[in-house]
């Protein structure tokens, strides 16, 4: 036996592969963070990644340095075949097959492995579009919804890059309202195939993919997914001239009586929306991870520039104005990273002893992800908006050079913008966040209503526990109470018509998301402190919690204004002010400390 003490390990068995995480991950319910408190050891953080996960991250980094970076100019110029050639070199390493079961030629690793690879591939959006588009929304529909025969036919080719996969949902007249698709599928007279007619738009890898998951309406009515090979007769439009992601392929697709064998119906006829929504859930988590990866690269470049660039006789990194920007970038990245890995842990908590050999493996995996559909939308919204903030400040720190093509931050700025649009716009995702929580409450999956009633009774009875010490825990506790109160008041006011009050719903989504981030940052910070690690988290936490609470309060005011009036409004405002009250931290000093550490390390 080794003489080293090892903490208790929870072992995740994926068909005999074992990737371990320290601590115990409880099996919790989606949205439960609003009504339950967790201990620091009950959440998964980036620091819990195992040696095996770090090995995958380092392997991706090496692949990036040796294969992607030297070819990036050709990829960005859309030199024909350049990106695909690099992607094909990722296949022998298994980097195109992390989630695919071994029996279909994959690596069969856990979700954390897929997410860490995504984060490290996220450093350039164009290549990430090719790679993650293939391994994510390209491959996952077959993996999750394919029949055994479909999996055997396609997954080995997708793992080995014999085929490049893409996902075709959006149409010229059907974007956020995907179910309004006009592409139709009609059974051919011989009954052996469907004839697809219509058009898709904004299809990632549309110019090069060999296999598409295409959504069409059978008989013009039943929304259904099909696995469509390019060789069946799919035609691609010309490459779109986009604001960013210049090196990724984005085209329209045209279907003119494309004959698709009936065996290539994916899932059930009329149930295509199940595929569309579930694949997007994982896509949203991966988008958040990629955003964290990209933001870290931009922060590192900004730190380097701030140390090198001189103004008024000093490096600009010595000025408080720049230090504040650097610190704020790091704070938001830290928060986005905290919620993304917490979500990974929550999903993994539902996958103990999971194996792709189990007969209902796909269903188990889908249920684990679907449980956290609201959280998937939260990390997407928070991650993409964090990235936009970081690239914007990155350009600002670079000054005029940040506006020039020769500087990577200029490209990062343009590339980042699409993240708020694809994988469901952030507006749609905000509606999903609140909608899913209410739906789960209505189905009895989340005891939200008793929790709302309890908080309402508590706050109406007087100051109560909120008069306690103004510490970080109270801020998180108060944010939860505010979130529950706003949900309760909005529901009281509008009841089943609440979903039509989109402005109110979006404010509630923002409150809920900030609350999730606040608790995640606090727990991660405490977890690191308990491990005796002197980290930047100690300074990040108090700044983030107070800034987030300020944002929560503003959103809550909007909700109150829309949902109450007169004496009720005044009473509610009194309660809100009491809950949202906090002593300011010395964030000038804290941000200087954070920036000082960042500048010394040149990374988060």
């Amino acid at each position, binding site marked *: *036996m*080794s003489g080293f003490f090892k903490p208790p390990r929870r072992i995740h068995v994926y068909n*005999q*592969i*074992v*990737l*371990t995480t320290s601590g115990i991950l409880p099996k919790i319910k989606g949205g439960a963070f609003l009504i339950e408190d967790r201990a620091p050891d009950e959440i998964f953080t980036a620091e819990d990644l*195992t*040696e*095996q996960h*770090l*090995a*995958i*991250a*380092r*392997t991706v*980094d*090496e*692949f990036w340095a*040796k294969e992607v970076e030297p070819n990036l100019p050709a990829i960005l110029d859309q030199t024909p075949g350049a990106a695909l050639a690099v992607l094909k070199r990722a296949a*022998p*390493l*298994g980097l195109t*097959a992390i989630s695919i079961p*071994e029996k279909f*030629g*994959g*690596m*069969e*690793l856990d979700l954390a492995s897929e997410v860490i690879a995504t984060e490290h591939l996220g450093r350039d959006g164009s290549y990430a579009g090719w790679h993650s588009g293939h391994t994510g929304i390209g491959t996952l529909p077959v993996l999750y919804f394919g029949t055994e025969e479909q999996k055997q036919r396609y997954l080995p080719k997708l793992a080995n890059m014999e085929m490049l996969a893409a996902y075709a949902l959006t149409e010229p007249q059907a974007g956020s309202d995907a179910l309004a698709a006009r592409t139709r599928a009609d059974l051919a007279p011989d009954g052996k195939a469907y004839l697809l007619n219509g058009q898709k738009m904004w299809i990632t890898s549309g110019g090069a993919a060999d296999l598409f998951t295409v959504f069409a309406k059978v008989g013009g009515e039943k929304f259904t997914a099909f696995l469509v090979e390019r060789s069946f007769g799919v035609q691609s439009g010309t490459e779109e001239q986009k604001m960013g992601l210049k090196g990724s392929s984005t085209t329209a697709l045209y279907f003119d009586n494309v004959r698709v064998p009936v065996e290539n119906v994916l899932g059930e006829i009329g149930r295509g929306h199940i595929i569309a929504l579930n694949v997007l859930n994982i896509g949203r988590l991966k988008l958040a991870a990629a955003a964290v990866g990209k933001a870290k690269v931009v922060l590192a470049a900004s730190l380097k520039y701030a140390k090198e660039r001189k103004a008024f006789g000093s490096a600009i990194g010595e000025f408080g104005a720049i230090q504040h920007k650097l610190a704020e970038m790091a704070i938001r990245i830290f928060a986005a990273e905290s919620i993304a890995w917490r979500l990974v842990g929550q999903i993994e908590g539902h996958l103990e002893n999971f194996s792709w050999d189990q007969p209902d493996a796909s269903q188990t995996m889908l249920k684990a992800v679907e449980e956290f559909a609201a959280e998937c939308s939260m990390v997407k919204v928070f991650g993409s908006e964090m990235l936009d903030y970081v690239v914007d400040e990155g350009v600002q720190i670079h000054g005029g050079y940040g506006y020039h093509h020769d500087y990577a931050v200029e490209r990062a700025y343009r590339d980042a913008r699409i993240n708020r649009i694809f994988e469901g716009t952030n507006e749609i995702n905000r509606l999903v966040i609140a909608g899913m929580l209410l739906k789960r409450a209505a189905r009895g999956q989340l005891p939200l209503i008793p929790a709302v009633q309890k908080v309402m009774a508590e706050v109406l009875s007087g100051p109560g526990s909120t008069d306690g010490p103004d510490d970080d825990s109270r801020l998180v506790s108060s944010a939860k109470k505010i979130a529950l109160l706003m949900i309760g008041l909005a529901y009281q006011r509008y009841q089943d018509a609440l979903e039509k009050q989109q402005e109110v719903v979006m404010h509630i989504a923002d409150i809920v998301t900030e609350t999730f981030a606040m608790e995640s940052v606090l727990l991660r910070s405490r977890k690191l402190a308990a491990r005796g690690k002197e980290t930047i988290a100690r300074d990040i936490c108090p700044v983030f919690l107070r800034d987030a609470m300020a944002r929560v309060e503003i959103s809550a005011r909007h909700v109150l204004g829309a949902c109450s009036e007169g004496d009720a409004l005044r009473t509610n405002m009194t309660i809100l002010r009491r809950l949202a009250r906090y002593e300011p931290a010395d964030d000038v000093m804290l941000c200087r400390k954070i920036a000082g550490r960042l500048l010394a390390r040149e990374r988060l």
Partner: protein
Amino acid sequence: MAVILVVEDDEANQELVTRFLRRAGHRVFHATDGMSGVRAALEGIPDLIVMDLGLPGMDGWEAARRIRSNPATAHIPIIALTAHTLSEDVQKARQAGCDAYETKPVVYQRLMQKIEGFVNS
């Protein structure tokens, strides 16, 4: 395709390196400590050995020395996996008979290139 012996006591590391090797088309068998590694090498005569150095019982250095000192296994290339990055540790691995090494967490792209280099030579 080569036959590769992986000597690694950590279950997760063993499984991960195995997945990478299998995906590259190699056949893999295992040992979990130095003594059984020496025995497995003799019984299986693999084309290559991937050896963790920090093994329980007989460590990887001693196992490498024994594999090298036996004429039946002396020709087998050994790639060491080590958490130790100090140059003296690397030197120690080479003196024990290891032909190459990789530090943990393993960069699999580099490891696979080294393996291919030995297998193809």
